[in-house]
């Protein structure tokens, strides 16, 4: 049996979901012999064959391909920065959304940035945006992995909040997924308990839906 590292309990929920093409079950296949097309390419190119094929077959046929399972779980403490902090504090304490405008090109960045990447200068004013916005694009996700906050099927969207110049990526919830179209109007649904993160908005809901 290949060795397995002792994983902590939560690893049992480590869902190896979405392998688009699952490897065959059972013993791994021996790498295929070089076929005629390959041999022709090698001979035309004066290449030496794949080193594996020059080895004797005997010892290879007895090799069990070992695998080693592990995971990397490293803590980080990212500084949100003064600009991002203002955004999240307003979201948490007041349920208000803000962008930051560059006076050079009049772009209102949402989420707000300290600098305008196009003009390469500091941004200037804080601009309250939304809370409603227009859906620029979306997708309905139909596969699940453990990093998703909702169970599939669910939707993501890029929402251009009113008075913003750039779109905000978020979830779309509480809606008929089949009825989603670009151009519809959405409003944020705030969580009751907010902690100053992007998920203080639970999702955006189409305006007028229910």
């Amino acid at each position: 049996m290949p060795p397995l590292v002792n994983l902590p309990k939560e690893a049992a929920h480590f869902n190896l979901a979405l392998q688009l093409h699952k490897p065959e079950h059972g013993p791994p296949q021996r790498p295929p012999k070089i076929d005629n097309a390959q041999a022709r390419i090698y001979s035309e190119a004066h290449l030496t064959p794949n080193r594996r094929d020059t080895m004797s077959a005997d010892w290879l046929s007895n090799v069990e391909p070992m695998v080693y399972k592990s995971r990397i779980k490293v803590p980080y403490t990212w500084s949100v920065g003064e600009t991002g902090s203002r955004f999240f504090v307003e979201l948490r304490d007041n349920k208000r959304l803000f962008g930051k405008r560059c006076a050079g090109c009049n772009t209102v960045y949402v989420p707000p940035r300290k600098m305008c990447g196009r003009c390469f200068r500091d941004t200037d004013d804080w601009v309250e945006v939304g809370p409603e916005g227009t859906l620029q694009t979306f997708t309905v996700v139909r596969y699940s992995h453990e990093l998703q906050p909702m169970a599939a099927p669910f939707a993501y969207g890029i929402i251009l909040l009113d008075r913003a110049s750039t779109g905000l990526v978020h979830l779309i919830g509480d809606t008929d997924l089949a009825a989603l179209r670009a151009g519809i109007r959405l409003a944020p649904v705030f969580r009751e308990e907010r902690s100053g993160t992007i998920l203080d908005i639970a999702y955006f809901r189409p305006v007028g839906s229910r």
Partner: protein
Amino acid sequence: MTERVAIVGVGQTRQERNKVYDTFADMVYEATTLALADAGLSIDQIENVVSASNDFWDGRTISSMAINDACGSYDKNISCVEGDGTFAAFYGMTRILSGAYDTTLVVAHSKGSESVSSHITNAMFDPLYVRALGLDAISSAAFQARRYMDRYGVSEEQCALVSVKNHGNAFRNPYAQLPLRLTVQDVLQSRMLADPIKLLDASPISDGACAIILARESAARKTPKPPVWVRGVGYCADAYHLGDRDLAECAALVQAARKAYDMAGVRNPRKQLDVVELYDAFTYQELLWTEGLGLCGPGEGGRLIESGATQLEGDIPVNPSGGLLSAHTVIAAGLVRIAECVLQLRGEAGERQVKGARTALAHGVNGPCGQSHCVWVLGV
């Protein structure tokens, strides 16, 4: 360019779903030895190395350090480009043009089988604003597909034609992972992943490695095979935040292509290019990138593929290798496009050979939804 640079050797492993007998170093060694044999060079004649490798995919930092025995980097200058192989090749070329080196080995590797792709690609998004939403490469690409298709009326059927063509082309490429005989209906009925991207609209998970050897002209002329000249290169990055970009367009690709075309003297790419290998991570991307490369007008990618022009027998064959849809080794995929173009221009492409190819274009992408592009024009 003040002095000409050529590609004098290429090597690639087969791309497979799970190369369970190979470590990263084993694959790098295989690709490197094949490239050296192809170039008629010994490892001692390689003056510096650029590794294209990604720490997160490999699960260890300084991913270039970990494979340096496999690419002859002891006592040499090896640097890492953490991105697609086309960008690593660009850096490798500039090291020669700087005057510091005559030859550069560029080797790219990754193994998609060893991690969970959605977890790795989720990590490219901002931890404060996007990552907690669980977005990944497929769901973000779906944003772009929808926006592009909405703007120009491109249909899912037109996207499906890309999958049919490229998986079919893969039968002629012994290195490709997924030769498949498909119909448009097969693609349309395949499992929906994130609207409008279905399973057969998406590239697979792959393991593999690819190596190329670049040389300045004086060194290139000494190698046994005709050098393949770098006629033009362009590189351009778009904004990082998805919401800052107009996802229905590919302004960064247009700019990168323009730079490469200007250098190469290409004024009419549709006429002057004989073969194109582009970065089709998803079917809609082949259509959108053919527009960005100027092979057709904006919004006309769907009509281009319907015309048959991009088939192997057409007037502008695209991805005769089968493209990323047939084998997508992250990081290596763009370098494989360059290697395939080299084989085409030498007449060594076997059953996927485009007859009489003299000018080729290879294209690579880094980041979600084509965040940055690198375009190569090669010629003999």
